[in-house]
């Protein structure tokens, strides 16, 4: 009796789940197919010939794509370095020291993310032009670092706030200087959270399109710009392979985020 009543319900659930899976994975499957399609035109529903010819084009050591990948990774690493340099002291101050207008300072770091960025970047590009920073890696790194600061500062502050104060006090009691306490106790204990923020900033920089579009062109070509140009030029194979290169780190991060960001740190973000 129950089985007979449950059967239509189960069928409905499986059907609904199938539709949901199609909506999520359909677009990704199309991307995968394009990346291995050597020829694909209408009226064929699937690629006419498959192959890895375009992968060889993309991964040719002298090609545009490898250069763009190199530039992207280099910019992302520099962006992480700049934001850690700024966010570790700022995060520590926000977590441990008495600051006037603390809530306001936290909000200030959110502003670059909360404002329509195109309107800001066109003016950044104009200011950078007078400073000779347009089309340079340093210019792009500065833009990416400002954009990612909300993650690095907020998560660093949360990570420092989650460190047990008693351990710091114990170190001070047995005679360690404040600086030594910070480097031997506080910083190592906050490291997992800070690594999580660094990964956030790295991915944000790797995926960033709008800022690079206005500040970096034409000299600085990153993977997102290469993807955009290939796609607009109708070269869907190159565009799809580039998209896959950008996709892999993002999906890996999605699968493992809970390992990097412990819930005790997560619950303190933005407080």
């Amino acid at each position: 009796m129950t089985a007979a009543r449950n059967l239509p319900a189960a069928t409905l659930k499986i059907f609904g789940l199938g539709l949901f899976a199609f909506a999520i994975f359909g677009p990704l499957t199309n991307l995968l197919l394009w990346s291995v399609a050597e020829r694909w035109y209408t009226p064929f529903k699937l690629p006419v010939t498959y192959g890895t010819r375009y992968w060889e084009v993309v991964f040719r050591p002298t090609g545009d794509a490898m250069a763009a990948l190199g530039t992207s990774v280099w910019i992302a690493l520099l962006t992480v370095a700049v934001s850690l340099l700024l966010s570790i002291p700022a995060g520590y101050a926000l977590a441990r020291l008495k600051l006037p207008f603390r809530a306001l300072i936290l909000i200030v770091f959110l502003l670059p993310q909360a404002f329509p960025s195109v309107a800001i970047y066109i003016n950044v590009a104009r200011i950078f032009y007078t400073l000779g920073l347009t089309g340079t890696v340093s210019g792009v790194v500065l833009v990416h670092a400002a954009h990612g600061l909300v993650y690095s500062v907020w998560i660093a502050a949360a990570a420092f706030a989650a460190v047990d104060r008693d351990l710091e006090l114990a170190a001070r009691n047995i005679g360690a200087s404040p600086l030594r306490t910070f480097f031997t106790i506080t910083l190592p204990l906050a490291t997992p959270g800070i690594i999580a923020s660094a990964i956030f900033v790295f991915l944000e920089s790797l995926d960033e399109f709008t800022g690079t579009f206005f500040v970096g062109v034409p000299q600085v070509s990153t993977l997102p710009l290469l993807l955009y140009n290939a796609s607009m030029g109708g070269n869907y194979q190159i565009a799809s392979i580039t998209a896959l290169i950008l996709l892999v780190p993002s999906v890996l991060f999605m699968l493992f985020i809970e390992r990097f960001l412990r819930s005790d740190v997560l619950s303190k973000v933005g407080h």
Partner: protein
Amino acid sequence: MSRSTALGLLLVAPALALVAALFLWPLGFSLIAAFTAGGEVSLAHFRKAFELYSTDIVFTLLIVGLSTVLIALVSIAVSGVLTLSETGWLVAVLKQLYRWPLFIPFIVAGQCMRTFLAKNGLMNNTFVSLGVLDPSQTVSLLDWRGIVITFVWKQAPFVILMLAGAMASLDRSTIEAARNLGASRLRSLIEIVLPQVGQTLLVALVLSFVTMLSVLSVPMMVAGSQPTMLTVDMAFRINAYGDYPTANALGVISYAMTAVAAWIYLRHNLKQQREAGL
């Protein structure tokens, strides 16, 4: 000022300086460029912006507004199932499925949809193969519909993540009580669960609204033709004409849209605080 406060300010200063240089300064620049002409305060650039782009202003609001509504509906439905369903395998599979687009960059989502939603894309091809659609009935969705679909696909997982998290931390006893008294799961969701997580839903939706308003790559890649979103118009004014005043006037209009979202959020927040007697 105590020593600790001075040290604190000193440590925060470099990070604040970067935001000042790369956000506040350009923001001031954009306001000045939008509101002055020939050294005097003027609304001329706004007149031009409205004259040329009034359709796109309405279009942007409609697209982002519709996407926000759809994201809300999808997120409530999925988080509702995740929280209230008694079918273990359904919850387990759904939990693994919904998150995939979470960290996928907008530009990659744009490229996926550019192929998936085309007249001969995988979506139409699948429907034709299954016999749901006749080949003559297929249409390209690469216009405003494509932008809305891409936004929902990309942003709904973020809202679900926040909403399902908030629902999971609710006190189960009120839900159990309602269920025991015979309330259906849909009714428990709408009358018991949703009112308690309204704040989280609102925050997630406001963040999504502002994010979608700033995206340049999706409207450029998914819908090439007119009408389009303000971000594309701004890029066009700059790249084709070097017309900073009009682009900045459009920028100020998009700030105003963000301000409306922020205002809705703050008003709701204040109302809640008043109700809580704070």
